[in-house]
């Protein structure tokens, strides 16, 4: 297990910024950290990297406890903080060489050149960081995080403030990285999780509200068609659930039912046919779509 967070709690004053969170991240996996602003994503990441201490719980990075073996744990983590802080007056290569020095990387020049190549900084390598556009600065931030070839990458909102083309490029880079490393990235963009992550964790007000593979969440997140129907007579729930294309049925009250189906699938005709076949009088039939945002809002309300 590359990153193992157990029962993590961080208290600021009276507020629980992170409230008993436990999760794991495996090698070869991109783990998405999803949640509204102020949910505790950044705080959790700062604790994993060893910048802030936790009040309770423990974190292991590649088997090293962040609290008791900080140097070993830090050596295995690459970190891109929120807002991507950089030394504006330094040159790109100078900064990367400095980072390599701090990590005692052997063969500094070769490693720096490789990172410059991989992050597409080639034409800007001799520029001052302060002169770079936001997209290129983000690449510098990623390059410094990857420079010492860490097993774990912690990326706090890696695509914020980038233009759509840059977002696609950075996402592809993260996806490639995820094949051989453990990547934990935070975002509040749902599409991003869908595009790059294998698994997602949703936190809200410091609490873990979901931890599932992206396929599972996708079903939940893909949205659904909801059809509300009211019959004059009572009906058997088991029979209703057998209507074609219906995933589940929920009783809303006396003879009122809610039918759930996959997004984009209109099941009103099937419900009507069922009513006719079973001699039920249909009083009302109404269709609504649940969007991805609705599901997210429900989870994080």
């Amino acid at each position, binding site marked *: 297990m590359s990153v193992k967070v157990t029962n993590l709690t961080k208290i600021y004053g009276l507020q629980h910024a992170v409230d008993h969170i436990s999760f794991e991240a495996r090698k070869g996996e991109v783990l998405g950290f999803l949640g509204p602003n102020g949910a505790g994503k950044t705080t959790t990441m*700062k604790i994993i*990297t*060893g*910048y*802030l*201490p936790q009040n309770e719980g423990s974190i292991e990075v590649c088997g090293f406890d962040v609290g008791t073996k*900080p*140097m*070993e744990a*830090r*050596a295995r*983590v690459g*970190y891109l*903080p929120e*807002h991507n*802080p*950089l*030394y*504006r*007056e*330094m040159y790109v290569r*100078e900064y990367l060489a*400095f*980072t390599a*020095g*701090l*990590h*005692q990387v052997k063969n500094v020049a070769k490693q720096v050149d490789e990172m410059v190549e991989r992050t597409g900084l080639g034409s800007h390598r001799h520029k001052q960081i302060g002169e770079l556009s936001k997209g290129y600065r983000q690449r510098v931030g990623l390059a*410094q995080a990857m420079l010492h070839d860490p097993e774990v990458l912690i990326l706090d909102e890696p695509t914020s403030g980038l233009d759509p083309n840059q977002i696609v490029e950075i996402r592809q880079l993260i996806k490639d990285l995820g094949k051989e490393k453990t990547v934990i990235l935070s975002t509040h963009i749902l599409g991003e999780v869908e595009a790059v992550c294998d698994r997602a964790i949703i936190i809200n007000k410091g609490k873990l509200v979901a931890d599932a593979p992206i396929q599972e969440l996708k079903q939940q997140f893909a949205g659904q068609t909801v059809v509300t129907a009211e019959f004059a007579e009572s009906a058997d729930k088991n029979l209703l659930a057998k209507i074609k294309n219906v995933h589940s049925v929920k009783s809303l009250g006396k003879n009122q039912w809610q039918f759930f189906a996959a997004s984009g699938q209109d099941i009103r005709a099937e419900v009507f046919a069922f009513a006719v076949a079973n001699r039920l009088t249909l009083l009302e039939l109404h269709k609504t779509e649940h969007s991805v945002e609705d599901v997210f809002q429900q989870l994080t309300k």
Partner: protein
Amino acid sequence: MLPIFKKEINAFFSSLIGYIVIGVFLILMGLLLWVFPEFSILDGAYANLDTLFAISPMVFMFLIPAVTMRSFAEEKQTGTIELLATRPITDWQIVGGKFLACFALVAFALVPTILYYVSVYQLGAPPGNLDSGGILGSYIGLLFLAAAFSAIGVFASSLTNNQIVAFVLATFLCFFSYLAFDYLSRLPIFFGKTDDIVQSIGIAYHYDSVSRGVLDSRDVIYFISIISLFLAATVLSLGRRRW
């Protein structure tokens, strides 16, 4: 520690800070020692460098805080401290690297003043008639003083993310630790009783002692203690986020 030391030195010389500090120090010293009649060695009766060693602490009091003020305040302001603190290096290495870089810059500014020694050596009658031992002692004292002021400045910078606050605070702390105890010891409550003890808390007392050309172990221990004290306080201050 070495990568941070190198980065800081590069930062001094890739911005104007390094050149300005060295330039201002040398111009000021040149004017005071050789041009302004009030202090000029040429107008004095003796071939010595007393003026250099009397005025340098006052100049350092302002110059060193200007060198150290950005060391941590800027990192905190821009957030780069977060990256530095999550590297596999200890807080002591970060503080040590920054302190040594500031000290090295100031020490470098002192190197050209050796020319003054050579000049005064030639000006003596007969040439070479000056207290070389005393001057060597004074240089050692000045280096100790620069190191102590650098430690104080780095500490002040670690307290805030505002460089101006860091500068003002460092200047005050340098002044206080250098001179204040000297003046305080003249208060009636200390005078004649414990005034020598109060005086010996201050840096000036030990600086003067080393400047006489006698390297007393007590003075060396004093300087090393005060440097360690402020560096430890800096490490403690960096760890504040953990409280």
